């Protein structure tokens, strides 16, 4: 029988249950599985691979949702600044090589969380030290565009490291999503420096994130809920800081309008839908 029908299932499950699933499939379809049958098997296999919840309480899933939202914010804050990637911001500060450092740090922490989750917190602390040490050793100071130890990146990095120590292990496909996003600024680093490239890449960055999570919602809606939480936090981080630093006498709303808050508003509408879906997928 054709084992390729079961490509999406984890190897161990396929070895244990593959023959009986194929027998059932052949009996139920008179030996000719349709495209729909194949799609249903692929989706079921991916759901199993995504560590789908097994009737666990909703709060367990919501804890994972928050954990992934923190991770998204970590990648976001480590790889971009004020809506653009680091490339353009740091080139003017005499540190054009800097963007690769935070992006690489995120990839290292994500990699450690993948292979040795118990060490992620220690690794996050060590990497955070390197993060501030490199520019200090090179220049004797932190370039203005690289914020000091009180900035959200430090807390997000530590929080992420701490969270992966928890009893809820983040499913590996989620870490793959983080790794793909974190790799975008590294791609930028190898791209010739032309003024419009960072803007294009930040759009690619956002598009990659939304596309990955939206497609994955067919299998597991928890990252979608995380994306909604993250979008609200990220909007608050960038827009509210601008609002605070607004020069006196000029209205923020006149200058920027309400459009910068659109992703956060859309996310607030999306969040209940995503949570409903999480609740449904976790029901027996």
């Amino acid at each position, binding site marked *: 029988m054709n084992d390729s029908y079961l490509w999406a299932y984890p190897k161990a*499950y396929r070895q244990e*249950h593959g*023959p*009986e*699933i*194929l*027998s*059932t*499939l*052949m*009996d*139920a*379809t008179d030996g000719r599985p349709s495209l*729909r*049958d194949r799609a*249903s*098997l*692929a*989706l*079921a*296999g991916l*759901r*199993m691979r995504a560590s*789908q919840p*097994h*009737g666990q309480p909703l709060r367990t899933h919501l804890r994972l949702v928050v954990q992934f939202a923190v991770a998204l914010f970590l990648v976001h804050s480590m790889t971009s600044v004020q809506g653009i990637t680091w490339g353009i911001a740091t080139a003017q500060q005499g540190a054009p090589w800097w963007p690769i450092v935070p992006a690489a740090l995120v990839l290292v922490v994500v990699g450690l969380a993948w292979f040795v989750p118990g060490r992620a917190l220690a690794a996050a602390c060590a990497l955070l030290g390197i993060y501030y040490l490199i520019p200090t050793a090179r220049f004797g100071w932190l370039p203005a565009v690289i914020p000091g130890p009180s900035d959200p990146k430090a807390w997000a990095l530590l929080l992420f490291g701490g969270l992966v120590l928890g009893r809820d292990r983040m499913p590996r496909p989620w870490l793959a999503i983080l790794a793909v996003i974190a790799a975008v600024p590294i791609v930028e680093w190898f791209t010739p420096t032309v003024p419009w490239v960072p803007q294009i890449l930040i759009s690619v960055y956002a598009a990659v994130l939304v596309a990955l999570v939206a497609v994955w919602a067919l299998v597991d809606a928890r990252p979608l809920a995380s994306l909604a939480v993250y979008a609200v936090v990220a909007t608050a981080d960038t827009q509210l800081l601008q609002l605070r630093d607004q020069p006196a006498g000029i209205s923020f709303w006149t200058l920027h309008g309400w459009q910068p808050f659109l992703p956060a508003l859309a996310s607030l509408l999306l969040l209940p839908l995503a949570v409903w879906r999480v609740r449904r997928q976790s*029901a*027996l």
Partner: protein
Amino acid sequence: MREPTYFVLASLIDGPRHGYAIIKHAQEASRGRVRLSTGTLYTALDRLTTEGYVRPLETEVVNGRTRRSYELTETGATALRAEAQRMAEAARLVNDSPGLATLLSPGAKRRPV
């Protein structure tokens, strides 16, 4: 408990069944409403096994087909009965209501409660 899960468990009341037998029984018992795909069935069986509601038995090869039957556990039977009682109570609320009989009788008029 979702409807497909209910019918999967209900199909195991009379004894262990293998995958295809569960699909057929669930479809017949639900009068065609529950049509389980192979993927959905094994996702449900995996969850129910994890929850301790069903137990997989040893595989056997019959006419070149590998079969594995699943049996209902005591935990599964308890959960199934609780769900059936919940639905029965909900049905009784409607079926035993004298008001409904009055409403459905010929020439009935609605009166304020």
